[in-house]
């Protein structure tokens, strides 16, 4: 699948995506995060939580856009989901292709490793000694992934493992499949 998918994603990125200036994008996200930190008195755990909620709200909408643009069908396995997220999802929305690695044997958990992160350009975390331990600056991504996957019946736990902003070697997000959600029939309807 990979080659055809990749060229399709390239094509979508080139011709069917509205693009905005990267500095505008980065600075907009940056001011959201720094304002959150200020509003929440540098309670970074709470900031992480808020970012994730914001991301989820984006994700549940974004998946609709994603499906409409790509016409992608249902994935046959979680492995395929991982590939699609990286090579199509991230490609068409952020023009990056994170590596999909660290699969567990049961195929229910993998990591996305980011070589570049347009959200975190220019950023240095505040040096109050707390931010580098608590704040996941790009946590909105976790929310987006979680929200989007939830809408296609995948209950997934998404979290950051490491971030170059904190001085780690690489930026890594871990996705763990909890279960497939069943289509639920509203009560009272046979």
């Amino acid at each position, binding site marked *: 699948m990979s080659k055809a998918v990749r060229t399709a994603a390239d094509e979508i990125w080139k011709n069917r995506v509205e693009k905005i200036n990267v*500095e505008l994008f980065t*600075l907009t996200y*940056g001011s959201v995060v*720094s304002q959150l*930190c200020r509003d929440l008195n540098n309670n970074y755990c709470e900031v992480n939580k808020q970012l994730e909620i914001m991301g989820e709200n984006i994700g549940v909408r974004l998946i609709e856009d994603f499906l409409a643009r790509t016409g992608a069908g249902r994935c046959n396995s979680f492995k395929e989901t991982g590939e699609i997220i990286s090579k199509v999802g991230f490609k068409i929305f952020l023009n990056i292709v994170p590596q999909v690695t660290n699969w567990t044997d049961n195929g229910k958990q993998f990591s996305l490793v980011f070589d570049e992160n347009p959200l975190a*350009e*220019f*950023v*240095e975390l*505040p040096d109050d000694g707390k931010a580098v331990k608590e704040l996941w600056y790009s946590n909105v991504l976790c929310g987006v992934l979680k929200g989007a996957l939830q809408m296609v019946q995948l209950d997934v736990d998404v979290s950051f493992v490491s971030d170059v902003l904190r001085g780690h070697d690489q930026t890594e997000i871990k996705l763990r499949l909890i279960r497939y959600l069943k289509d639920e029939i509203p009560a009272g309807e046979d």
Partner: protein
Amino acid sequence: MSYYFAMIGTRDNPIYEAELGTFKQGGDGTPKFSAEMKELNPFIIHSSLDIVEDLQWATNSLYLKIIDNYYGYYVSAYVTPTNIKFMLLHENKNEENIKQFFIEVNDLYLKTLLNPFYSVNDPIKSTMFDSKIKLLTKKYL
């Protein structure tokens, strides 16, 4: 050869200062100010600020060249469009290199400013910034 470099914010507040040593002319990269000069440096720069404010409106260029001297030391200045002042105390006249140094520092300052956690007039505490300044010193001064 030793240099003293300071960045002054819009409210005449210092946001960054460093003593820089040269690698040229057999220097080993460490500043060699005498104990008295170390204490005097900030005062010399501070007293030159008035001259900068007079000169900055008289020219279109950001680089104001040597604006002041003090017993064999020169003070060069550069004012960014947002009125952040870069001041450099030096012993030798070396206009072209100092100009390049200022321009690159301006670039560096710009990147700092783009960091969402930094706001104008905050002191710059980033160690990254510090080491880049040292690199620029090595390259130009």
